[in-house]
């Protein structure tokens, strides 16, 4: 081939230009939905992001979207799903500088509050007041979506964290489920002596271990203490003796060898396997466990029973005048809610879609797929729930308060600090007092 500098230059230039089209910053922009330059007949587009990308909830959401589209033929909903952790990252990046979708998935709590206070999501309070929409929701999950008395998201899914135990294994060894922390400690020692792992725990991602700290803290100092510390009310702090005591109790469990060996290096999957294979007797995990158990070991859920986390002995000596934790309180929260981005140009259509996503049919379907809806549904629908889930729901209903997961109630940075310091209490690299002081220090800086 003959060599021609000119042709090669042209070729290179065209390659460069071609590549430049894919470069970040030169982002291809879809025509603004409903704007004037859209050709006639062009549909309004709504982008919806969520993370329910597995069988069950994915289909229920897709179905609700389809019904909405049938009722609104001029609207096209573009659904995109993400993996849990990837979504958190994506959301924070898009919120900081990029483009949020019209409708976004949220867990409520601190993450939603941050978006709401930065003016990134729409206030839905007034929309909820119309046509009895608000009455469709249970009060507790709606509270999780409320920031400064305004509602910014509509909840669909409710979950809680009971202490699951293998009833058959307990019966075989003539053991009784523990009612108090002292009984739990004793039980753990007995199970270890029988060569059974007492509590399955895979703490690599840090949140599974945090459940223990949250429970011990709420049983010791009460949920109010946590809410007040997070709201920076005078007299409440994250280094309150109750939080330190919770850490000490956690250490007692670690020292009693109560958890899976090497728990900090194991992910949730292998820990769940230990429980389902009956190598471990108990498992502190959210209600979503039931669906996974049904999938991986269909016979197992018939052996699964649950109790509320054991009560902690009176704690008045350290907090005179302070309330001690109520033993019915359940750790839980909203695991699926939807908010509307402020950048959404068709907020009325978006609100209409939210109504479809939270209608009666979704509530019933949600029960059918084995998850607890944040919506009011009839008793017949609740009877569709798997037996273990139904038992967990009874605990949830008997609870005086729902204690939110710290990492969903607190703003992201404090949430990370909570997970990191709790994990270090588990690892023994921080004392409970040091961990509490670190939390309080960052709380002072960020709240």
């Amino acid at each position, binding site marked *: 081939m003959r*060599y021609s*500098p000119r042709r*090669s*230059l042209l*070729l*290179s*230039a065209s*390659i*460069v230009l071609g*590549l*430049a089209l894919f*470069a970040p910053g030169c982002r291809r922009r879809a025509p603004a939905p409903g704007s004037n330059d859209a050709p006639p007949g062009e549909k309004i587009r709504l982008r919806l992001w969520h993370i329910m990308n597995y069988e069950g909830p994915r289909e229920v959401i897709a179905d609700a979207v389809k019904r909405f589209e049938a009722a609104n033929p001029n609207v096209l909903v573009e659904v995109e799903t993400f993996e849990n952790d990837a979504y*958190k*990252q994506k*959301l*924070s*990046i898009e*919120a*900081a500088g990029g483009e949020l979708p019209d409708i976004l998935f949220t867990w409520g709590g601190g*993450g939603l509050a*941050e*978006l709401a206070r*930065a003016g*990134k999501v729409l206030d839905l309070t007034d929309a909820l007041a119309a046509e009895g929409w608000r009455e469709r929701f249970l009060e507790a999950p709606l509270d999780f979506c409320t920031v400064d008395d305004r509602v910014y998201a509509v909840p669909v899914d409710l979950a809680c964290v009971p202490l699951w135990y293998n009833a058959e294994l307990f019966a075989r060894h003539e053991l009784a489920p523990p009612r108090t922390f002292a009984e739990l400690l004793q039980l753990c020692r007995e199970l270890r002596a029988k060569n059974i792992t007492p509590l399955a725990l895979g*703490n*690599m*991602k*840090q949140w599974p271990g945090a459940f223990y700290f949250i429970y011990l803290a709420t049983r010791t100092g009460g949920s109010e203490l946590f809410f007040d510390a997070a709201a920076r009310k005078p007299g409440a702090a994250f280094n309150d003796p109750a939080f330190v005591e919770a850490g000490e109790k956690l250490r007692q469990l670690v020292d009693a060898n109560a958890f*899976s*060996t*090497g*728990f*900090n*290096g*194991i*992910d949730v999957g*292998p820990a769940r396997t230990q429980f389902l294979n009956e190598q471990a007797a108990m498992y502190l995990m959210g209600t979503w466990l039931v669906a996974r158990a049904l999938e991986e070991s269909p016979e197992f859920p018939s052996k699964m029973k649950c109790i509320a986390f054991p009560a902690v002995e009176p704690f008045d000596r350290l907090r005179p005048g302070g309330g001690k934790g109520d033993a019915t309180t359940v750790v839980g929260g909203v695991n699926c809610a939807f908010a509307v981005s402020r950048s959404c140009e068709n907020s009325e259509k978006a609100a209409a879609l939210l109504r479809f996503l939270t209608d009666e049919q979704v509530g019933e379907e949600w029960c059918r797929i084995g998850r607890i809806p944040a919506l009011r549904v009839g008793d017949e629908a609740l009877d569709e729930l798997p037996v273990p889930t139904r038992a967990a729901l009874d605990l949830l209903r008997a609870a005086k308060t729902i204690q939110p997961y710290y*990492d969903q109630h607190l*703003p*992201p*940075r404090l*949430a*990370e600090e909570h*997970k*990191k310091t709790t*994990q*270090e209490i588990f*690892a023994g*690299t*921080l004392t409970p007092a040091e961990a509490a002081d670190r939390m309080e220090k960052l709380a002072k800086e*960020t709240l």
Partner: protein
Amino acid sequence: MTSVSTRSAPARFGRGLFGFLLPALVIYALFVILPIGEAFRLSLFRWPSAVSEPVFCGLRNFAALMGDAVFWSALGHNVLLLVLSLAVQLPIALMLAVFLSYPVRGRRLFRTVFFAPMVMPTVAIAVLWSYVYLPEQGLLDQVIRLFDRGFSGGAWLGGPNTAMLCVFATICWRYVGFHMVLFMAGLAGIPEELYEAARMDGASEWGAFKAITLPLLKPTIRVSATLSIIGSLKYFDLVYMMAAGAPEKSRELMATYVYRLGFEGGQGRFGYGSAAAVMLFLVALAAGAAVTFMGRRTND
């Protein structure tokens, strides 16, 4: 070729050659030089939260970084990785290469087996090895139990003192085949006559290795060492995936720390993370300069 044609060639093809450089240059500028400059700029700002507007804060991020124990531990781990790569990984690779240079049976098979981890996806390796290190049921614990029946299982990937070393073993397993292939190529270039002459003179195998193989392999060793140094300074993936459960001061490399500050859990500490990234850049630059300088000196 005459001297005239070699001198005039660049002049004649000058513009054409520039055309060939241009695509790479543009991409390099767009994805490397520009982001580095951008990181410098961002490191001067502070994000009160991920969604708030950044606030200018001068060099305060760098001041905070100097007092950040996690950052120093991350830097320490990079150095550890570098030292172990040079002191453990390269000698093993060299040993394997020398071993495979002898006409042993199943030589091709061994070569493929040692090289295989290089072509496996990193995520698969991370999952595979986390089962090796799984406490109680994992391969490692089962092997230990063959010798010590009472062994109750180690913390391995979750342990403050063991996490990094466990991941290093995996990294070593992964890259040793790559360096082995480099060394094998180097060994192939050493003339067989030299060994024959040495044997005639009555040199031992070890003597021949010291007097012939090592000196003649020096350029290859230098390439291997340079790649190891660069690789261990920018290393990310296996450590990020496998050591996540260890306490903060035992699990970070500089690159994983930068990433976690910016993105993990939606913290959005973009400014502080950029400051850490700038430090990473400066350390890498210094190491790169040192390697280049040493390479020049030995070449002369």
